[in-house]
């Protein structure tokens, strides 16, 4: 008989009490590590003076030029070191952040032909800190009291504004491309490591749970503020044409990933050809673009994709698990080949479909700058609204009879049937809703790019979308957005690694599965 109880994790028994000096040394590990982190931050990081003139950002690498200039990743290291020294609970996340920052910079410096000096010291400090943090006894969870509404609103406002700043800073971290800053990729990754460490520290002190409890209590207020903050992004440092284009692409993929999250995350149906629905929406809208206004084209794209969702879903009802994955994989491949060969003259084949007009509302084309805002801003706003709508769909369905039936199917299909769930119908609805969202995103995709070609919908895109869902957290509402943002901004940031993209994603997924199987955003 299976008892189905959660496995009990046995901690290693505490090390036996050591006599005198050894015990003192062990207890001194954490403070020593914190000091070492600070020292590492202030040491020179590169053995050679990198060509600085043309790249002002590289100045941060040259300790000797500006010994008191603690900026960029060094500032982050100092902050993490101070946190580790002063806040006992912060040690573990700070250690992970320190290790990440050190590793990233060492790797890049090596790539640039320089030996790192501060790097190994900081890495050692991070490892020492992690060792010290792991040896500490587990602490009870921190619970913060819920404040009165006025204070809660203020806290939420500050929290979401900080989130907006963080998103804007992350997006622009490391600059636009290799042309202006060869060190951009490292700066971005290191900033990401710092951001995750800060989130870890806040979580260790119960701040994240506190904020999320408040936002749950003041749901409408939170949603309004969050949406407002998202729409404010064009007014931050990310408000350039380039970043707006990147951000609206992320929005398109995020909405698609949310649709996939319904199919995979809620209903547990592994779909390996999902990007085809994005493609169907995009080609539908592209073909209609000159004939009908955007809302009609978008609706047509969504409906067509939804219909295909049902068509693909129906024959797959009889197969489960691995077989379903294979059938959907085949569908994705059929779509890709059909589009490549311009079946029915609908996809333009190798020539793509060019010249799709930009979205045009009241004679105002969406690609033109308006009122001091850069050109892509309104595409960004449309994609924010689309993502918000998709999140609402996921959240509302999740808390309904339909959503619970999906979860039940994911957990145990036979038992779901024994509870009266008509599993076939429920699965078709999952395919329908997911594909419709992807189709809608596809329509925006087509208009935004102005051209749609089959290459945008190959297998690796499906895999990336799936990775985004798993990385972010299966079945959670913000998970797919977080995952899609990371996975679709990273290639933008790390162009020099584009050949290794899938390999790096694979690595990231392995790490996630090992250390945080519930994904970055967990549901409980």
């Amino acid at each position, binding site marked *: *008989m299976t008892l189905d109880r959660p496995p009990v994790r046995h901690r290693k028994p505490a090390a036996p009490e050591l006599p005198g000096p050894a015990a003192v040394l062990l207890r001194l590990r954490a403070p020593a590590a914190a000091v070492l982190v600070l020292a590492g931050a202030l040491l020179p990081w590169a053995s050679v003076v990198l060509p600085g003139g043309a790249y002002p950002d590289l100045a941060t690498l040259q300790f000797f030029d500006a010994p008191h200039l603690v900026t960029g990743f060094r500032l982050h290291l100092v902050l993490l070191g101070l946190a580790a020294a002063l806040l006992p609970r912060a040690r573990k996340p700070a250690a992970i952040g320190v290790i990440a920052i050190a590793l990233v910079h060492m790797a890049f410096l090596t790539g640039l032909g320089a030996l790192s000096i501060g790097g190994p010291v900081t890495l050692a400090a991070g490892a020492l800190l992690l060792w010290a943090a792991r040896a500490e006894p587990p602490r009870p969870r921190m619970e913060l009291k819920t404040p009165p509404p006025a204070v809660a609103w203020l806290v939420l406002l500050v929290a979401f504004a900080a989130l907006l700043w963080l998103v804007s800073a992350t997006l622009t971290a490391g600059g636009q491309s290799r042309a202006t800053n060869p060190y951009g990729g490292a700066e971005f990754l290191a900033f990401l490591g710092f951001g995750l460490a800060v989130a870890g520290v806040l979580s260790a002190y119960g701040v994240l749970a506190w904020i999320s409890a408040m936002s749950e209590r003041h749901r409408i207020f939170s949603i309004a503020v969050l949406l407002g903050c998202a729409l404010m992004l064009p007014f931050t440092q990310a408000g350039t044409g380039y970043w707006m284009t990147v951000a609206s692409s992320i929005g398109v993929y995020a909405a698609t990933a949310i649709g996939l999250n319904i199919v995979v995350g809620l209903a547990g149906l592994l779909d390996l050809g999902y990007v085809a629905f994005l493609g169907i929406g995009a080609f539908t809208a592209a073909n209609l673009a000159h004939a009908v206004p955007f809302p009609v084209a978008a609706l047509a794209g969504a409906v067509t994709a939804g219909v295909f969702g049902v068509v693909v879903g129906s024959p797959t009802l009889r197969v489960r698990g691995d077989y379903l994955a294979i059938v959907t994989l085949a569908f994705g491949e059929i779509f890709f080949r059909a589009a490549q060969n311009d079946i029915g003259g609908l996809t333009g084949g190798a020539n793509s479909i060019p010249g799709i007009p930009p979205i045009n509302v009241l004679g105002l084309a969406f690609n033109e700058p308006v009122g001091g805002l850069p050109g892509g801003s309104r595409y960004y706003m449309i994609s924010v609204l689309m993502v918000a709508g998709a999140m609402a769909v996921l959240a509302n369905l999740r808390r309904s009879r339909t959503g619970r*039936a999906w979860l039940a199917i994911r957990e145990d299909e036979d038992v779901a049937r024994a509870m009266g769930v008509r599993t076939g119908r429920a699965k078709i609805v999952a395919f329908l809703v997911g594909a419709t969202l992807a189709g809608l995103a596809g329509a925006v995709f087509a208009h935004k790019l102005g051209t749609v070609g089959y290459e945008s919908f190959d297998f690796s895109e499906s895999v990336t979308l799936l990775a985004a869902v798993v990385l972010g957290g299966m079945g959670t509402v913000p998970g797919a957005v977080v995952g899609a943002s990371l996975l679709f901004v990273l290639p933008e940031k790390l162009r020099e690694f584009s050949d290794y993209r899938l390999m790096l994603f694979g690595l990231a997924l392995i790490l996630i599965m090992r250390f945080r199987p519930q994904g970055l955003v967990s549901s409980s």
Partner: protein
Amino acid sequence: MTLIAENVSMAFGGLVALDDVTLTVPDRAIIGLIGPNGAGKTTLFNCLTGLYAPTSGRVLLDGRPLEADPAEAARHGVARTFQNIRLFSGMSALENVLVGRHTRIKQGLMSALFHGPAFRRSEAEAVERARAELAFVGLDPAGDTPARSLSYGDQRRLEIARALAGDPAVLMLDEPTAGMNGSETTAIRTLIGAIRDRGITVVVIEHDTKFIFSLCDHVHVLVRGRMLVSGPPEAVRTDPRVIEAYLGTTECSK
């Protein structure tokens, strides 16, 4: 509502798990099903709840043949629990019970998308009922604990609450006290009585003969796939065939 297994046989390859079994589940009663391990009790449950299609014979619900489809059986009021607990372990206790209520909740896809007033009313009703079932089986009505972190005994109770939430006419319990201690077993016995008092027929598989003979209105003894004896507890207890075939085995300790 009467549920009838009529000359049901079930073979898995060469292994005959059920051999020409006939069983009538009348209205408002507690029916006990006993028999040694491997006798085919769970297989009979699976046939009665549409999980298995019998190799021959048929299952009748109010005179109509029951499709081999658990979802249809559930819709027609046949609910069950499982011998090896099968909860939706990642979902909260309350959500588990809400899934049990699935067939009785009326919500269209559109209303679920927009959470309008009609949706909220139906959802509130369902939640209220689910909480009532949690309280009925003796669990915390808030139900926000994930099913997997409940204690073993509470998981068994949660399975019963989930089955009750669908307004069943017949509730089939597969070894509801397996792995429980004395006081927990007593509590389950009281619970089964309370379920019968709600007008629900209970079919229960048990190894504890004292439990069965004191609680049931009818007892069926299944041995090696055949229905050996059926009748009121007194008659079954004293039947020489039962004493030989069943009580003669290791199960007679109680």
